């Protein structure tokens, strides 16, 4: 009799627009935490600013709602100070791939063991629908005065290039599948990205639920829609790098897969590689006791309040 999904909810009013894809992500997150039976006080959800950025307040675990674009640096600081915490970063596509894309790329270089969720709605939701970095060139959702003049970033390809070691795409309205991916991402040893296609019914009238579901291209004979979303796993896709040798091949294949967009949109795990040392492992090479005695856990003073540090050696080096 463990924790239920609903135990991970706060009683706050969830103020997303009706029909927002964030509700799906929210449900998936609760399911995933319940499946993993994580203790709320050991979990920290770190978010940026945006509609998506409000997630921590709705979750009954520790929440750190940070600055626009700075989700990852805060998350890393928390994780490295106390690696026993389960740190989940979550933010918008503008947050993570616009103003925060520098951290997105740089975080890939570190392989810190955390999970990063991008709520990808192709717009800046909270500021009323401007183009986000994942909006394709030339598109004009209803909130834009003219077609988008910027090309889109491809988060999956970018993550592959930057060094993320677990890379997945989810679809917000497929809650079960999203939850499964989140469980895998949290369990992954290393830096995991789950980019979630998240319809924003209020501002993005192009990448809608109907569009993802292919309702715009119903088979005239069967009357069935032809969904854009499909599952990688169902195509026999094997994302796992098992030996260093096969990394190049697997990551190129994943890159190619990452370019699929529009008519067919694969969801699932694109790439997974646990052979790359995590940042914690890299630190432990010179600070062998890091895992047991990380910054937040060291004793820094004795009972009398005097510093725990022994200063003699330091002074000796400076002696004249």
């Amino acid at each position, binding site marked *: 009799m463990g924790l239920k999904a609903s135990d991970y909810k706060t009683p706050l009013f969830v103020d997303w627009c009706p029909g927002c894809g964030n509700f799906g992500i929210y449900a998936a997150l609760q399911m995933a935490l319940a499946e993993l039976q994580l203790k709320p006080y050991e979990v920290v959800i770190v978010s940026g600013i945006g509609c998506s950025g409000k997630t921590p307040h709705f979750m009954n675990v520790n929440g750190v*709602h940070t600055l626009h674009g700075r989700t990852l640096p805060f998350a890393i600081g928390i994780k490295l*100070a*106390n690696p026993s915490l389960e740190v989940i970063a979550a933010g918008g596509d503008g947050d993570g791939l616009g103003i925060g894309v520098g951290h997105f790329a740089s975080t890939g270089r570190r392989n810190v063991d955390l999970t990063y969720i991008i709520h990808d709605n192709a717009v800046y939701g909270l500021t009323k629908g401007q183009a986000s970095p994942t909006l394709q060139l030339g598109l004009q959702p209803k909130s834009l005065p003219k077609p988008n003049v910027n090309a889109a970033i491809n988060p999956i390809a970018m993550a592959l290039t930057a060094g993320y070691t677990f890379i997945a795409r989810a679809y917000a309205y497929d809650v079960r599948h999203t939850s499964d991916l989140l469980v895998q991402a949290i369990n992954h040893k290393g830096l995991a990205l789950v980019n979630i296609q998240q319809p924003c019914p209020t501002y993005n009238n192009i990448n809608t639920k109907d569009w993802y579901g292919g309702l715009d291209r119903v088979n005239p004979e069967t009357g069935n829609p032809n969904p854009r979303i499909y599952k990688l796993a169902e195509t026999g896709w094997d994302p796992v790098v098992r030996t260093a040798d096969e990394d190049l091949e697997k990551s190129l294949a994943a890159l190619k897969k990452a370019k699929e967009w529009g008519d067919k949109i694969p969801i699932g795990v694109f790439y997974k590689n646990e052979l790359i040392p995590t940042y914690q492992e890299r630190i432990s090479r010179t600070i062998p006791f890091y895992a047991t005695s990380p910054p937040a856990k060291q004793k820094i003073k004795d009972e009398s309040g005097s510093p725990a540090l022994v*200063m003699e050696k330091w002074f000796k080096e400076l002696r004249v």
Partner: protein
Amino acid sequence: MTGKEFNWMIGGPQGSGIDTSANIFGRGFGYGGYHLYGKREYHSNVKGLHSYFHFRVSNKPVAANVNDVNLLAAFDAETIVRHIREVTPKGGIIIDKSDLNLAISEIRTLPSELMKLIMKNHGSKRTHKTIIDLIEEAKEKETRVYVVPFLDLLKEVGDEFGIEKLSRVTRMKNILALGTTFGLLNYDASLVEKAIGVVFREKPGVVKMNVSAFNKAYEYSKQNFDDDFPHKFKKLDIHEERIFLLGNQAVALGKVLGGCRIQTYYPITPAADESEFLEAHEVFKLQSGNGAILVIQTEDEIAAVNMASGAALAGARASTTTSGPGFSLMVEGLSWAGNNEVPIVITYYQRGAPSTGLPTRHGQDDLRFVIHSGHGEFPRIVLASGDMKECFFDAARAFNYAEKYQMPVIHLIDKAMANSTQSYKVFDLSQVKIDRGEIASRDDLQIGKYKRFRFTDSGISPRAFLGTKGALMWYTGDEHDEIGHISEEPLNRNQMMEKRMKKLVKAGEEIPSEEKFNFFGQEETKNIIISWGSTKGAILEAMELLRKEGFNLAFLQIRMIQPLPSNSIERILGQAEMKIAIEMNYSGQLAATITEKTGIFMDYFILKYNGRPMTTTEVYEALKKILRKNAEKRQVLIHGS
């Protein structure tokens, strides 16, 4: 005569070993019981542009440079050109024989504006075209000139160690300059050899070669210039234990002592040295077992400050360190930390600004920026240390302030401290205590009950760290309720603003005066100096000189600029007849801050903003003008090269 004080300058192109010679020089004298103060000047360049070290040695404590150069050791012609006029009458110059005939106009590293200026300064006769010309001029002022055949001596060393390529030994020019210097001073060579041994301790081969080179030059000097140079020094009989350290080392030491266990940084001059020192010493002994500081080089300063905040929320004492451009990038994060009552410490190494400014030069231009940085109103504590010792203790104490009052602390250092060395009696650590402030009690921690931002009388809400069993907490940069959830309600907003702001009042009330300011002199003194930061040494020394001449001055050194000890300042300045602000900036930033809080205006300003620290000499002169009532209200100091 046996000298009491000696000022040595060594100059040459960046990367030619100036620093090493200065280090050996200082240690050599340190081992002989002398007090030391030395500053480094260098261009924002890796190799080739001019750089120098200015050293002061004395049998009494010293805390600043003076204008004097008793002996100038020049690695190259440019050093002569730039500094020859600084050499005191009867002082000396050590010069490489091969530089003598160089034409000034051929020194390619001299900026054209400077070239013109020098030509002008040295007379329009256009006769001063070579180094010899400059030297002749100096000789007229009885300057001693010691021409040393550096290349010949280097060849000798090369031969001794079987090294054919001269280029592999030219680096030791710096040791030759030292050898010549100490020969002239007739100082105990073994003390310098010891220093060489310590400085190169990881490379025994190098030690040997350098000792040999040192001795060759030492002998050469004794043989050729013996007794000519008026300054002579011998070992003093002193048994005090002393350390000799840079400002950035002092900060690093203070931080680890104070419990800092995670430091984030993005490289920037002159802050990076501190982090690199910590990186090289990341594992250390604790009273029981080992400890470590995790030093993280981030992708930028934005990441640095926010990572530090994250770490602080998890319960680590966390810090980041930067200079002007980096701090500018941090202020959004600072505002978040202020709003969320996060105890981070930011060490801010000021340098010449605005923008990239004078990245390797000194300045105190950022005081008011720091006080007001970040959008919105939130409490922060701003400390400004005045010397390496204060750097050390303030660095440790900063974490107590941060955690007790749950707010960011900005610790202001400046380049003149960061890159200067000073000798001190070993610090007494008994005064250092660690106080982590109010931590949530078991009572606070019942699930569902803990309120991270609980309203209390003091404004301080007991803290729990992320991951504390039994506590859940929320943080947000939005205005929030006691639990940490977003709230836009007007009443809550008022209460939360007041909660945050009153902590600063409390800090101001509780922190003892001696941590907020130093007052030197008698309260009745009518002439009072106010200042902050690294000007301290020069001011105290200038005051002492003036005291001997019968001029009485007092000096109020402000160390905590936010919350400003306005009442004490008002009391002290209120009775003064002449109030003199001394600052290393254009506008007198501390003075303006004091006026804002007290309505008191300064009568005189002694300001400097040319990128070079104030010397005792020029502060003395400027003060004297004021005391003699023939000073302008605003004196701008310009010494330095």
